[in-house]
């Protein structure tokens, strides 16, 4: 059996992480729980203190928490350089301790947001440390990207500076956008309040619900955070529980990352909820597959069907057979543009245990050029600020931070965008097969 370590950094990272642990406690088995270790990092006390006073306090011991008091002031440089060097030893120690609890450590899950200071700056510093100290262990990062109406003025700087670290040091990144989470939350609430017959949602089955978890009454971002928590729970469960076609975490990176920097995997989760009325006919299974590819179910604002797939993984849970899987892939394939050299680029897994409240579920991870617009928007927002040198002095004052950090970061983002563009250019062209080797006879 293999183990994973979940590292949550910053306010958002810790709130999502908490929702994850809450759900895991209620919904998963001892087997799953014993395969997970936790490390919590935050530079202000608010969130972690709340955890320590809440029902999850039994789960963590104080050595797993690394905190400070004043926060990073939404400044990536403070998070990355100031706290990064101040807490380096303590963080490494804590990571080593978590790793020692693991018989066979397979994966680090890092959870953070991009727009602030701690999650973004210190979080990416932790990422670098993970690579240095545990180079052979897979690093899967869940990154929450800011929405357009983000109220943190410097979030474009923080995000772009963090992007460079993600591109260079992560094995896989699962980008999540706040706006998409808001849209999904609204969609579910609308559905449950619509009063249409047969539209009553089964209790606790929606991916936004805390599923009766230990933490009690829901707080403002809880619904959105529950979605991300469900995503993580789904990934760890699929790899943990048995099925007729097992999929291991290290197989995800192997199959979905054809080029080292292009490791941004768009997640989608279906179903979003289960209807309470069991008399509704079950075209649900095929509908589930269709939904996985619709833009409403993606966790970033993107439409993968109209961009180019480099690779796609489908992790199916519940009572689903190989024949159902193959039938749906055959059905959907003609509508999904795949890059010429990976026309059958599907990695599939069948896990027999469904999530609580559902008979089956599907998690899709798509390596798709539809991330490009998100990155381009990020670049635009960055450029608007950077051109006027707005707020830069806050960053440059920080020890370890230089002008070059900015230029290198934006350059890294631009070349990433360029790589996606080149692939996009091949999309509607009929690419000839590569000429085969000629053997003298």
């Amino acid at each position, binding site marked *: 059996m293999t183990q994973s370590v979940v590292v949550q950094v910053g306010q958002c990272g810790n709130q999502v992480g908490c929702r994850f642990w809450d759900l895991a406690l209620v919904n998963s088995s001892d087997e799953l729980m014993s395969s997970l270790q936790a490390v919590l990092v935050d530079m202000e006390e608010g969130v972690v203190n709340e955890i320590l006073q809440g029902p999850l306090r039994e789960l963590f011991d104080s050595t797993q928490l690394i905190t400070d008091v004043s926060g990073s002031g939404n400044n990536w440089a403070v998070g990355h350089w100031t706290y990064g060097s101040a807490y380096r030893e303590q963080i490494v120690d804590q990571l080593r301790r978590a790793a020692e609890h693991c018989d066979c450590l397979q994966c680090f899950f890092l959870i953070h947001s991009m727009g602030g200071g701690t999650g973004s700056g210190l979080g990416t510093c932790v990422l670098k440390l993970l690579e240095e100290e545990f180079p052979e262990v897979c690093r899967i990062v869940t990154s929450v990207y800011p929405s357009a109406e983000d109220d943190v003025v410097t979030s474009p700087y923080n995000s772009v500076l963090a992007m460079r670290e993600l591109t260079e040091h992560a094995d896989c990144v699962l980008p999540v956008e706040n706006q998409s989470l808001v849209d999904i939350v609204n969609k579910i609430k609308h559905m449950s309040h619509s009063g249409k017959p047969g539209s009553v949602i089964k209790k606790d089955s929606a991916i936004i619900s805390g599923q009766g978890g230990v933490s009690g009454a829901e707080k403002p971002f809880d619904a959105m955070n529950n979605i991300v928590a469900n995503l993580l729970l789904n990934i760890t469960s699929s790899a943990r529980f048995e099925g007729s076609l097992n999929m291991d975490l290290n197989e995800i990176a192997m199959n979905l*990352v054809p080029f080292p920097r292009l490791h941004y995997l768009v997640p989608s989760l279906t179903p979003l909820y289960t209807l309470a009325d069991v008399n509704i006919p079950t075209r649900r299974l095929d509908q589930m597959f269709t939904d996985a590819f619709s833009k409403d179910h993606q966790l970033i604002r993107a439409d993968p069907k109209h961009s180019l797939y480099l690779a796609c993984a489908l992790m199916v849970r519940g009572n689903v057979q190989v024949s159902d899987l193959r039938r749906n892939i055959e059905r959907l394939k003609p509508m999904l543009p795949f890059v010429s050299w990976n026309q059958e680029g599907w990695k599939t897994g069948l896990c027999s245990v469904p999530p609580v409240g559902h008979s089956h579920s599907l998690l899709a991870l798509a390596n798709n050029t539809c991330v490009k617009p998100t990155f381009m928007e990020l670049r635009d927002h960055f450029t608007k600020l950077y051109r006027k040198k707005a707020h830069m002095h806050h960053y440059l004052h920080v020890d370890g931070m230089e002008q070059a950090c900015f230029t290198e970061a934006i350059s890294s983002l631009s070349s990433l965008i360029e790589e996606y563009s080149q692939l996009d250019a091949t999309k509607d062209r009929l690419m000839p097969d590569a000429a085969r080797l000629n053997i003298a006879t």
Partner: protein
Amino acid sequence: MSIVTVQLGQCGNQVGQELFEVISNDANDTQRKVYSECSSERFFNETANRELVARSVLIDMEPKVISQSIAKAAKFGKWRYGDRSHFSQKQGSGNNWANGYCVHGPRHEEVVMDIVRREVENCDRLAGIMAMMSVAGGTGSGVGTYVTQCLRDAYPNSFILNHLTWPYGTGEVIVQNYNSVLTLSHLYQLSDAILVHENDTVHKICAQLMNIKHISFSDVNKVIAHQLGSVLQPALTGDSHGVYNRNPIGELMSSLVCHPEYKLLSVCNIPQVSSSSMAYSMFTWPGLLKHLRQMLIANAKMEEGIDWQVRAPSLQPEGIERTRSHRRPGFNTSLANLLILRGKDVNNAEISGFQDPSLYTPWLPADEAFSMWKTPVPFNKYEKSAILVSNSQTLLRPLDNMVGKAWNMFASRAYIHQYTKFGISEEDFLDSFTSLEQVISSYNQL
């Protein structure tokens, strides 16, 4: 003489367990004591307490499948695996051939070869070693290739047969074509013969002949096990004078693999029906053999959907070189064939259709190209069954497709960094592609 089997990775272990199950059932079923004893000696070791222990070594890089296989074997109490005959680790090979071949293989070489050695020493005489694995994943393919190399080094004078399962064409693993190309090119140098089953083909057999509605891997594996068992169970060869053949692997090779450039073997089995239809089926040797012959030349893998339009080219008068223009389209040329007949009235079967020189490539005399084994003992509940092990162009198209897809992917260098980080370079890939293009070219020329 005995065969030692090495089961590698998830597929190798699952199919291997089904194979021993089929063999044990077949041997137990029969009234023929000599057949039964020969089969037992070949595949099992009898302990002091009269238990049958499979002559098998189970290898995997993660523990779940091996535990399941061992448990399934012991379930009916008829046979079991040896207590110390398995080796597993905690974490798999991540579908990465390079991880299997360059890291796991060497790391565990000593322990694995120790277990193999013990199993070989348990045999009075070793007939040969059969390694079973898939080519799509990381362990069966990568570790399997490394272990085959170790076997070759440790037993230079023994016969080594590799049984390979090729994945579904539409993909289970995205990098399966890379893993397959690397495996096949290496095995071609190391192995004496490579016997192939394709998931797509077996799946069709399950769907169309056996009428299974929701096909699972277990169904597929049972069919593979049945076909493989029907090849390896005791039979009488032409010159064995009424004694069951001592060394099926050796004889397989001398009949079918006369040239090192041609090592790919496929199996065809008739009849293949669901157990519920068996009671109502009546088969005659002429009917079975007529279908089997057409399956060979028209490249059909089962009794349904055979293209009867495909005909052997007409025989040229002696002295005229048969050129490729005389070949009919869709015609499958053979290098060599082995026909195995099992069951009732086997001596009345008329097999001259398989000795027809027009089926074979011109540069091998027809009497060297065709061999036959037979036994009056029926196999696995089929009153009559005919098995054809063929060294022919059957696998040419699937091989070509596999290499083509891998080459397209390689041309864009996609996923290559996943391999280079474990020590397989672009040069290694190119070497593998070159070897396989050579194999494809050779089979094209038949």
